[in-house]
């Protein structure tokens, strides 16, 4: 049974594009007021899912409700109650900051009494009070993104869908953005957010990992780490990391690249460490450090994908 009192509840949601299955029968439950992170690499089906939840895309199969309304039969009711921030920057670049806010105020039907207060709030939140008459085109990425968020929540929707809101934004702006999402969540807004930044996933109350259209894991960040990482992670600092990766993979050791470092997932770090060092050294690599670290969500994710 679909529980309409939940912010989001879908079952067996599916979407095909021709012969390609973008979303392959997923179940999701998001409680009111929760920050729900939807993780996965590009092309895993994140945007397709979020569009179906927002009533922008009709599912090929499955059923469910968002804000208590049926996603197939009542998409327009859903649209009155959500804020949606698409992956592509969606404000009008040839309008000024102020004109963009006014436009969305009108579109979302914000009442006359609230208009000024909401506008002031967005300008302040986005830090654009001084630049209200600047063309949106001229703004830096972080400002654009905050303005977009502001415009999408002018009507104070109880549920917010954010599709990769922080892609292409500098780290400081990303942190500011997340503190904003936090404060909204505290005021009772449900936030459904997709990302491929694993560090951002740590901020979420609950997570679902999607890969090739299927949910491969779901739960609290801490539980996920514990449950799926009974094994150890070794961080290896070595020259020519990509060549080293190939060598270790040939030796049957699960290894992934993290920036300039390698992460190897092994059963027992104490044993595997010296063995890896020996393999690398004998092949002429310069090993600077091998260290056992606490697994991050990214390690969990790589591990889960390799297992699936």
């Amino acid at each position, binding site marked *: 049974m679909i529980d309409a009192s939940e912010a989001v509840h879908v079952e067996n949601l599916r979407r095909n594009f021709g012969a390609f299955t973008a979303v392959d029968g997923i179940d999701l439950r998001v409680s009111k007021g929760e920050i729900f992170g939807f993780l996965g690499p590009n092309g895993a089906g994140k945007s397709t899912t979020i569009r179906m939840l927002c009533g922008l895309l009709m599912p090929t199969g499955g059923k469910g409700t968002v804000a208590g309304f049926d996603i197939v039969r009542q998409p327009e009711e859903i649209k009155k109650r959500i804020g949606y921030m*698409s992956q592509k920057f969606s404000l009008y670049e040839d309008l000024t900051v102020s*004109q963009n806010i006014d436009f969305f105020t009108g579109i979302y039907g914000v009442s006359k009494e609230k208009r000024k207060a909401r506008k002031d709030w967005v300008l302040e939140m986005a830090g654009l009070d001084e630049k209200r008459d600047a063309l949106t085109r001229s703004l830096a990425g972080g400002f654009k993104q905050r303005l977009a968020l502001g415009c999408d929540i002018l009507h104070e929707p109880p549920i917010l869908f954010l599709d990769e809101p922080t892609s292409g934004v500098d780290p400081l702006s990303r942190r500011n953005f997340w503190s904003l999402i936090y404060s909204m969540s505290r005021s009772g807004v449900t936030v459904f957010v997709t990302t491929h930044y694993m560090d951002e996933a740590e901020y979420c109350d609950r997570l679902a990992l999607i890969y090739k259209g299927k949910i491969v894991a779901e739960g609290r960040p801490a539980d996920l780490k514990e449950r799926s990482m009974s094994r150890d992670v070794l961080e290896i600092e070595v020259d020519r990391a990509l060549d080293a990766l190939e060598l270790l993979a040939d030796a049957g050791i699960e290894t992934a690249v993290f920036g300039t470092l390698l992460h190897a997932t092994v059963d027992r770090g104490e044993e595997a460490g010296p063995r890896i060092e020996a393999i690398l050294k004998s092949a002429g690599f310069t090993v600077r450090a091998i260290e056992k670290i606490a697994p991050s969500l990214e390690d969990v994710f790589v591990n889960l994908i390799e297992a699936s």
Partner: protein
Amino acid sequence: MRFQRIKAIVRKESIQVARDPFSLAMGFLMPLMLLFIFGYAISLDVDELTTVVNDLDKTSASRELVKQFTASGYFKIVKQVDRYQDIDYYLDSGRARVAIAIPVDFLSKAVTHKGARFQIIVDGSDSNTATIALGYASGIAEQAIRRFAGVSVAPVIDVRARVWYNPELKSKNFIIPGLVAVIMAVVGALLTSLTIAREWERGTMEQLISSPVKVPELIIGKLLPYFVIGLIDVLFSAGLGVFLFEVPLKGSLIALVVVSSIFLFGVLSLGILVSILAKSQVLACQVAIIASYLPAFLLSGFMFAIPNMPKALQILSYVVPARYFVGMLKDIFLKGNSISFFLFDAALLLGFGTLLFALANVKLKKVME
């Protein structure tokens, strides 16, 4: 339907048009250019036809004949040649479009009533001009025959031909009213064809369709600014036509505005429908040109008279809305007819507009594919 949302879209769309050089050029510069091109440069009037004369008779009678041609104002003698064969050079090179050849015995045969002859040769490579030139030439020849036959003979039948509505038969008088239809077709269909496609291409459509805005609100909000631009163009074209090019506006301005509004509603709806279906600006623009501009230009009777077209094209012209609009424009400008004369055509156009508007509303879906 909420006025607040329509207003928001109208404002946004107006700001975007005002900031877009292409839209501004299409909306305001292009009508001006067309008016000047058709008002000044292109004329279908045939006068001062370059004429070469080969007068072998060289008598008072032959000179009198040639004089009648020049006096008409339609023919301009560029050269007198002595040998008949020299005519070829002038016609071949395009230095002359008409040749008049008078044989040596013209006067003697004329006075003795033995059937005087002379020859007119017309360059038929431009058949339109040739037809008109032949008409003028026959008329002048007719008069000449009467003169030589003697003034005393009263004609058995006296034809008094009179041209109504455009007595001087000036081509700009019928081209400029029709030009309003072409301008409307461009401004209406071409400009609006870009509006929805542009939103899809820039990704802003995804945001719009995720909002509670309703489809008719979106369409009306997008049409209104272009409707205003279109009406400004109508008044502007009419004003320029009347005051600069001296085209008579015999009918009422109100009739002009009412009829133009009905036509605008149709082409704007067509443009927005194309935009909805095409989803890309390049494709939308091309389809809009083929669906509105070309028919308005070629099949509306604006320049090329429909009764002279092949039967198949005549039938095709019945489904070209601009055909009805051009007809009504000429009625209003030249005949001064009141709206009751073309109520049926106006109703037909309104039906066309309503159909396209309804279709646009059905075809614009607030979902992605």
